[in-house]
Every structure is written in structure tokens, then in C-alpha cells.
């Protein structure tokens, strides 16, 4: 415990670090919200489709939990 306290004390002006950190974060967050609210529909659409690739647009076979493969569709 003494060890940690003395290590921290040796950092100059450490008492300001929390305050500075807080200011950085809150300004970042405010800018973020303003920015996100102005994000265009098209952009948002494009980004949110990133996991889906073209061949996913094909019909998806929920019965068999798999993309349509070329074999029979017998239900097990």
C-alpha cells in the first residue's frame, strides 16, 4: 500500500488527471452525439449491412438452418 501510494505521488500534478480525464470524455461524448445525430441515412444503411454479403441476399433456408445447398431438403 505504501508502495503504490509513493509510486503515484511521484507523478507530477496527478491530482488533476481525473478532472482532465473527465473533461476530455464529456466533450468527446457531446461531440459524438451531435455527430451521430447528423449521420446520413444512406451511410447508416451501408454500414449496418456490412455483415451481410451479396449471396446472403439469396433465400435463406430456415427449415434446415443453412444456405440452400444442392441436396434434398428432407427434414430430420
Amino acid at each position, binding site marked *: 500500500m505504501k508502495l*503504490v501510494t509513493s509510486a503515484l505521488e511521484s507523478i507530477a500534478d496527478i491530482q488533476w488527471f*481525473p478532472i482532465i480525464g473527465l473533461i476530455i470524455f464529456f466533450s468527446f461524448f457531446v461531440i459524438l452525439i451531435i*455527430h451521430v445525430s447528423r*449521420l446520413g441515412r444512406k451511410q*447508416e444503411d451501408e454500414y449496418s449491412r456490412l*455483415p451481410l454479403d451479396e449471396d446472403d441476399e439469396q433465400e435463406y433456408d430456415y427449415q*434446415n438452418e443453412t*444456405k440452400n445447398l444442392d441436396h434434398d431438403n428432407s427434414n430430420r
Partner: protein
Amino acid sequence: MELQRFAYDNRLSRMFLNATMFWGFVGMLVGLTIALELVFPLMSSGIPWLSFGRLRPLHTNAVVFAFVGNGMFTGIYYSTPRLLKTPMYSQTLGKIHFWGWQLIIAAAVFTLPLGFTVGKEYAELEWPIDIAIAIVWIIFGINLIMTMVKRRVKHIYVAIWFYIATFVTVAVLHIVNSINIPVSLFKSYPVYAGIQDALVQWWYGHNAVAFFLTTPYLGLMYYFVPKAANRPIYSYKLSIIHFWALIFLYIWAGPHHLLYSALPDWAQALGVAFSIMLIGPSWGGMLNGLLTLRGAWDKVRESPVLKMFVVGITAYGMATFEGPLLSLKSVNAISHFTDWTIAHVHIGALGWNGMITFGMLYWLLPRLFNTRLYSKKLANTHFWLATSGMLFFAIPLYFAAFTQSLMWKEFTEAGYLRYPNFIETVVQILPMYYLRALGGALYLTGVILLIYNLVMTARSGSFVRFEEDEAPALRTGKISGEKGHRIIESKPVLFTILALIAISIGGLVEFVPMFMVKSNVPTIAAVQPYTPLELHGRDIYVREGCYLCHSQMVRPFRSEVERYGDYSKAGEVVYDHPFQFGSKRTGPDLARAGVQSGPMYKPASWHYNHFLSPQKMVAQSIMPPYPWLIKNDLDISTTNRKIKAMQYLGVPYPEGFADKANAHLQQQAYEIAQNLRDNGIQIEDTKEVIALIAYIHRLGRDIHGGEKVHFSER
């Protein structure tokens, strides 16, 4: 633009997938074992490594780091290349990551049951393994970040931000909480002590939940739910805001594990406030996941994968609603130290992590083997087993928690505790413990079905090692017209640094004042360091995992002061490396077990008989017997080094005491053993149980006018 062709290598996903199934089974089997031990305490039948306190850390570590860990890596190594349109940066680093991680788990499987532990929950592994974890983790991070650097798409999809936040934060948490001073290859002491150790530990513990069990799985949710439902995520804007809010707020919430403890009020208040705010971003994530399936409920009914995702995400919503609730001081006064905590974490682990993992595996494995799932019917059966297993687990424990907590707090009209005998409150809830074990058994059965189903699926197909894809190269150079968050998103290193800053702030705000301001830990003049014998006894207490059933933190309530003795103060524990507040009272609090005038005091001979057979002293006790403590000799070869390590950490033993420590130890051991012999117990001075009794008898003694310890005279 010219298209570049490349291939994804599926081997890493496959390796991690296999490990997920294997360790999932092992971790849950150990869980079921300890659930049974709570109703059949003699089950461990005197075998040290089978006892509850040794196996419980194995259970938690195996489920968190082995099952969920491997599960997260399975998904990350599958989704990251596909989202970035490039193979992983290095297959070799990936393999080192895989084998390194499995070796670490294997090391845990051996060392934890053998009693090698630091004694801090979910951070039990000893220092050599801690170092290995740090190295392997950083290798994983390098691979992840370099893959981002090499990517062929401009925008980095939200799932990957969650992966990065996971990497950065877990690295920081693990390193800060694991700074220990080694005494031997398998024994070390944390540099922090008492209340500060508690603060660091629960900052770590809470954020292990946040950044090991939550953020990576949100990343998986953002990839696999859209994939399995074949529709885009409900709101991308929401995902951006909830991401930053989540990682920033989470890091502050740790102190809610220490409400009503000796932690200063300002730190407790901070923890509560941020925990309540956390509902916002948590539910943002849940809604985003569930609403992705809007209009697709017909598919959900058909598909076990989607059903599991829905239950998983719903469990996430329940757990993140319950969490802030449990952080309210008035609720916490009832819930803390009871089975409510256990129920809560299992809604998270069985519901959220388990279901998302299972859904992902059922979706992924047929694709890796280019085939169909062997049996959808079995998968549906698994779904029902898992769901009912979770409910059978949690609901009885909620009931047990309420029952026991109210019994602890109940007074008679004359003003006495209605149930002064702790064991009465245990016996009352034993039926609930049986039901919980049944719930666990149902859940585990489901996992066996999963393994069978997936093995059969793999056999019916053939492994697709490479999957081809093509994409245009990423344009380098200045990206014009970009601003704000888009710039951040497209610059992985900048993004990583920002995430690091966001999560460091909470830690700084809590730690700096805690370590710097003297008034936060008022010193108590009467409090002295442990004697060498007591220190050894304390190490045995840690080794046996007694802290997993016993707290050492009397809260300032009338019911607790009456039952145990004076409430705990921060200044009492300034020499405790590590702190031993505990988080669950399966047995009574022990913080006042050494106060001779108090209600908890028992003579040495009672403790001796109790450790030999708790059931002989308290017929219905569920504490396991510890016959080996009576057989084994205390290892005093490390005394010198232990005292020196403590001195290095600032514990004020007299100069040169380390060399005289064993003489001091033998004198004290003789006195205790003589007392036992006077009571007709045949025992030598050298046995481990003597040290443990010495420690138990020291608890709370200093501040209750107990005899002063003399370090120099003997």
C-alpha cells in the same frame, strides 16, 4: 476498380470452437459438482482438491475464461476477417494465441485445485500464469489490430469496436489487478492492501463482467444476429452511442460490490450512480439486438439459432436491469452476501453468454463443414433444456436469498435475533440448493446434446479450410469529406487509444484519491501486523478458499452487529494483502471470530474439532471437513521470505524480524498446541491447523482491546 482475390482460413475458428465445447462441458461439470457439495458436504470425503473452496475458483475460471473466452475467440476469428475483407493478419500469431490460451487453462486446472491462488475472485491464478495471460492476450491484440490495418473496407463495423474495447480494457484490468510480489513460484501477495485492494479487485471484477462477458458478446451479437436473421442491425446510430456510453460508464461501477463496507462513502456513491446510468446503454444494446428481429418472428419460431439468440439477449436485458437494482443501497442491504448474487450472475452466464454461444455454434459449425445441422430436433430440445435449466437454477436461488436474508435480519419482540444460530438459516434454504443442482444438471444435459449434435454434423460434412472472397483494395491516403466519428472509426490505432482513454478515466477518478488521500483510510493505532504464525494461517485460509463461503465484513446494521460484533473499519485491514472481505455468506461472517468477549468467539479446541468434522460440532453444517489441516505439517521454510515481502510492501515489522520470525512462530504454535493438549487433544506444535486457529483468533482482536503482539521480545 480492380478486385483482389483472397481466402479466409477457417482453421482458427474451428480450433476455438472445439475448445469452447470441451471447456464448456468441463467448467459446467465442476459447477454441478460444487452445487452438489453444498447439499452433500461430505462428498469431498477429505480429499483436499475436491473441496468446495478449491473447486469453486476452478468453476468460475473455467466458465469465464475457458468457455466464454474460447467462445468469443471462435466468433472473433470468424467475423473479423469477413467484416474487414481480409484474412487475419497472422495465422501463426493466431495459433500461438490458441495454444497459449489452452495451456493457461490447463495450468489453472492443475494449480487451482492444488490451492495455488492469490485469493481474489476471478483473479486467482498465480503470478507465472498471470504473466502468460498478459503475453498471450497482447499477441491476440496485435493480430486483431494489424488485421484492421490491413483491411479492404473503409468503415470498421461496430462489432469490431467491441472487440477492440475488449482487448484494450481486459489488458489494463488484468495487469493493474495482478501486480503481486512473488514469495515463491506459486505464492505471491498483491501490492495493494485492505480497502484499496478491495477497490482495485472489484474495479477488476466488475469490469471482467463488462469487458470479458459483455462487450465481446455484444460484438458477436452485432455480427451473428444479423447474419442468422439475414437482416441489418436495427439502428446503427444507436450502436455508436451505446458503445461509447457503455465502455465509459461500466468502468466506474465497481464500488457497488462494496456497499456498506468500510469503503469511503464518496466511492460507494460514485459506484451506485454509474451503475444506475448503465441501464441506458445496456438496454440500448438489448433493444438493438431484439429489434433487429422485428418482423422476423416467424423465422424465430422456426429456428433454434434465433430462438437461442432471443433468449440470450433477453437474459442480457434482465441481468442488466437487475444489476443496477442490486446497486441500490436499500436493495443491496438485502441481496448482498446471499444467493441473489449467484442467481444474478447465472442469468448472465447461462442466459446471455451460454445462449449466444450455443446459437453461434449451431449457426457456424454447419458452415465450417459445408453441411446441414445433423438434427434440428435435438437443437430444439437443447433450447428447452437450457431455458428451463436456467430458470430452475435462478428462481430457487432468488427465493433462498430472500428467505435467508430476512431470517438474518429478523428480531423477536424482546429485541433479540430470532435466528441467532446461523445454521438455522442454512437449513431453511437447503431444498432450494437441491433445485439449483437440478437446474444445473438440466443445463449440462443440454450441453451434452449440443456436443453430440455438432460432432455428428461435422462428420456428415467435410471441413472447408479456405473460403474465397474478393474485394477492391482500400484506397489509402487522405480520405476527403470525412469528419467526426467516421475518422475515428476508420483509424484503428486512434480508435484503440481513444477507447483506452475512455476506460482509464473511471479508474483514475476512483484510484487516485483512494491512494492519495490519507483520510480515506483512517488508521487505528491498536492495529498491528499479523504474527508469522497468523500470516501462515491466513495463507491457509486463502489456499482453502474459505473466503468463498465466509465474509470478513460486518456491515453497520443492527442485525449484523448483534450477530457478529462491531462493524468493520477500513483501518483494521491495512496489512491485509490480499483483502478477505468475501462476497458470499454460505457460512457466518468471521471478522469478529477472535473477539473474546464477542458472540463469535470459540475456543481453540472447538475450532480443532470443527475443522476435523464440522458436522460433529454443528450437526447440520454444510461446511466440508478439513482433516488434512490436522495431518499436514506447516511449511515454515518460506516464513523469512514472506515477512520480507510484507516489509517490502510497507508492513511495519521491526528491522531484522524476518530472521527471528520462525522462533516467534514456534513459540506461539507451542502455546496454542499446549492449550489443545490441555483439553485432551493429541497434537504436535507443527500442524497446519495450529496456524489457522491462530489466524482465526486474531480476527477483530486488535480493535477490541486484545492483548498486544510483541514482535521483539521472544
